[in-house]
C-alpha cells in the first residue's frame, strides 16, 4: 500500500508539472496576441448604441482593471494563476459579460462523455481483437481485419468524420449528422433526452472509434505475436492449460501493460482528434467552442478552453496511470 501511495504521489507530481508548464505556456502565447480584448469589447458595445466619449473612456478604464491589463506581465501572470485556481478567468467576449469559465463548464461534460465512452470502446475492442489476431495467426477473418486496420488507421480524423457525414448525410440519411441532441427535446433528466443524446452521439463516436481501433489492434497483435513465442507460453500449453485461459490470462493480460502505457501517452493526441470531430458534427463540446472562440477573436475564452483542455487531459492521464498497478503487480510492489 505504501508503495502504491508513493507511486501515486510521483504521478501526481507529474500531473502538477504538466498543468503548470502547459497552462503557463498557453498564457504567454495568448498574451503575445495583437488582439486587445478591451478594445474589441468597446467596439462591440459602441457599435450597438451611441455612447458619450467620456463614458467610453470610463468603460475602458474599468475594463482594463477587470482584465488586469494595466499591470506588468509577471503580475498579470500571477493574477492569472490566482484566478484560475478559484475558477474565474474573466468575462467572455462572445457572450459578454458571461464568465468564460461558465461557458467552458457547459461544454466540458459533452466532450468528457463523448471521449471517455469512445476511448473505452476503442481500447477494449482493439485490444481483444488484436490479441486474438496475434494468437490465432492463421484466421482469415482476423487477417482481413488487419488489412482493414492498416488501411484505415493512418487516415486523419477529419477525413473519416467527413466521409461519415457524406455517407450518412447525403447518400443514406438515417442518422443525425449535426448537434448534440434533437431540437424538440427539452434538456433534463428524462429518458427521452438521454436517448436523444445517445442517438446524436453515434456518428461522432463512430468516427473516433473507427480511427482509433486500428492503433490498438496493430499494437496488440505485434505484442501478442512476440509473447506467444516465449517459453512460458509453450510450457503452459504443454502443461494442458485450456486455450481460452491461455489467451486471456497468460497472453493478453501480459500484453495489456504496455498497451495501458500507450493509452496514457496517446490521450493528448486523441483529444486533438476530438476537436475536429466535434467541429465536423457540430457537437456542443470543447472543440467546437474553441473554434468558435478563435473565429470570434475571444482571447479569454480561447485561453479558458485551452487551460481546461490541458488540465482535463493531464487528469485523464493521471487516472489511467493510477490503474497501472492493478494490471501489473510489479508496479504494485515497487
Amino acid at each position, binding site marked *: 500500500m505504501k508503495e502504491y501511495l508513493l507511486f501515486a504521489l510521483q504521478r501526481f507530481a507529474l500531473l502538477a508539472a504538466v498543468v503548470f508548464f502547459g497552462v503557463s505556456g498557453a498564457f504567454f502565447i495568448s498574451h503575445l496576441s495583437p488582439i486587445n480584448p478591451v478594445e474589441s469589447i468597446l467596439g462591440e458595445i459602441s457599435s450597438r448604441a451611441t455612447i458619450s466619449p467620456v463614458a467610453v473612456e470610463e468603460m475602458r478604464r474599468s475594463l482594463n482593471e477587470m482584465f488586469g491589463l494595466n499591470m506588468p506581465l509577471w503580475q498579470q501572470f500571477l493574477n492569472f494563476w490566482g484566478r484560475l485556481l478559484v475558477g474565474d478567468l474573466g468575462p467572455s467576449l462572445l457572450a459578454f459579460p458571461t464568465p468564460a469559465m461558465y461557458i467552458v463548464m457547459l461544454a466540458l461534460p459533452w466532450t468528457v462523455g463523448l471521449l471517455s465512452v469512445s476511448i473505452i470502446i476503442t481500447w477494449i475492442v482493439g485490444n481483444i481483437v488484436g490479441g486474438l489476431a496475434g494468437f490465432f495467426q492463421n484466421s482469415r477473418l482476423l487477417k482481413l481485419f488487419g488489412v482493414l486496420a492498416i488501411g484505415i488507421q493512418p487516415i486523419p480524423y477529419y*477525413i473519416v468524420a467527413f466521409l461519415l457525414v457524406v455517407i450518412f448525410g447525403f447518400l443514406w440519411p438515417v442518422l443525425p449528422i449535426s448537434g448534440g441532441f434533437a431540437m424538440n427535446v427539452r434538456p433534463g433528466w428524462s429518458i427521452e433526452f438521454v436517448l436523444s443524446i445517445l442517438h446524436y452521439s453515434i456518428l461522432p463516436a463512430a468516427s473516433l472509434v473507427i480511427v482509433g481501433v486500428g492503433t490498438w489492434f496493430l499494437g496488440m497483435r505485434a505484442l501478442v505475436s512476440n509473447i506467444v513465442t516465449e517459453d512460458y507460453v509453450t510450457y503452459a500449453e504443454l502443461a494442458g492449460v485450456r486455450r481460452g485461459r491461455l489467451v486471456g490470462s497468460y497472453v493478453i493480460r501480459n500484453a495489456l501493460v504496455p498497451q495501458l502505457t500507450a493509452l496514457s501517452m496517446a490521450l493528448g493526441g486523441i483529444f486533438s482528434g476530438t476537436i475536429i470531430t466535434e467541429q465536423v458534427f457540430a457537437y456542443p463540446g470543447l472543440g467546437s467552442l474553441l473554434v468558435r472562440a478563435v473565429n470570434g477573436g475571444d482571447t479569454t475564452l480561447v485561453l479558458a478552453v485551452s487551460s481546461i483542455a490541458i488540465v482535463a487531459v493531464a487528469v485523464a492521464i493521471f487516472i489511467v496511470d493510477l490503474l497501472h498497478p492493478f494490471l501489473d503487480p510489479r508496479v504494485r510492489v515497487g
Partner: protein
Amino acid sequence: MFSVLRDLIRYNIEFAIGLAMTCFIIAFAALSFFSPVDPTLVYTAIPDRPPSWQHWFGTNSRGQELFWLLTFAFRNTLTFGITVAVLSRIISIVVGLAAGYIGGWVDRVLMFFNDIFVAIPIFPILILFYFVLRSDLNSFTLALIMACFGWPFDARLIRSVALGLRHREFTRQALFAGMSPLKVMFQEHLPYVMPIIFATAMANMIWSIGLEVTLAVLGFTNLSIPTVGTTLYWANNHSAMIVGVWWWILIPVALIIVMFVGLFLLAVSLNEYIDPRSRLRRMGA
C-alpha cells in the same frame, strides 16, 4: 544499404506496397515543377468542369485546374512533413542519446520534460499560435512549432537503445582510447539508432501532416498557400459536396489516403525489420 532495400522489397510485401504508394505520391508532387499554371491564381480556367481528357481532375469552383493545383498541394504538404520530421529528429537524437549515455540527473531532467511534452495536448497550443500570429503563421513557423512537440516519443525510444549501448564493450574501449563522450555518442552510438530514426520519421510525417490537414480544414493556417488541407478548406468553403462538385473533394481525399497508407506501411514494415525476432519469423526461420 541497397541490399537491405532489396531484401525488404523481396521479403516484405507491405514494404513493397508502401514504397510504391509513397513513390507515386512523390512523383505526382514532382510534376508541379512542370506545371504550366500558377496555383495561387484563381479563375484561370472555366469553373466546375468535371474530369475529362482536357482537365484530368476537372476544375474547381475557383477556376483552378485541379490536377496542377494538387501537384503543388502535395509538394507543399510533403515538404512540410519532411521539415517537421528532420527538425524533430534532431531534437530527439540529441535528447535521447544524451539521456541514455550520460544518465544520472541529466537523464532524469530530460525525461521529466519528455513526459510533460507527451502529456500536453498539442492541438489547443497550435490553435493558440494561430490565434496570436494569424496570417503570419507560415508553413515554416508551423513546422518549427510542431517539431518542438514531435520529439518526445522517439527520444524515449532512442534513449532506451542508448542505455543498452552504454554498457557494451566497445563503448568502454572507445573511452579508454581517448574518445570524447560527444564523439562516442555521435560516431559510435548514432549508427545503432539510425534504423529507428528512419522508421519513426515516417510515423512523425503521418502525425504532422495529419495535424496540418486538420488545422487547414478549420481555416487556421495561411489559406493562400496550396496544401492538401487548404484544398479541402476551399472545397468546403464553396460547398462542393452540396452543389455536386464531387471531384474537388473525392480526388484529394483519395490521394491523401494513398499518401497516408503508403507512409504508414513503410513505418510498420521498417519497425518490423528493426526487431530481429519478427524479421526472422517473416523469412521463415
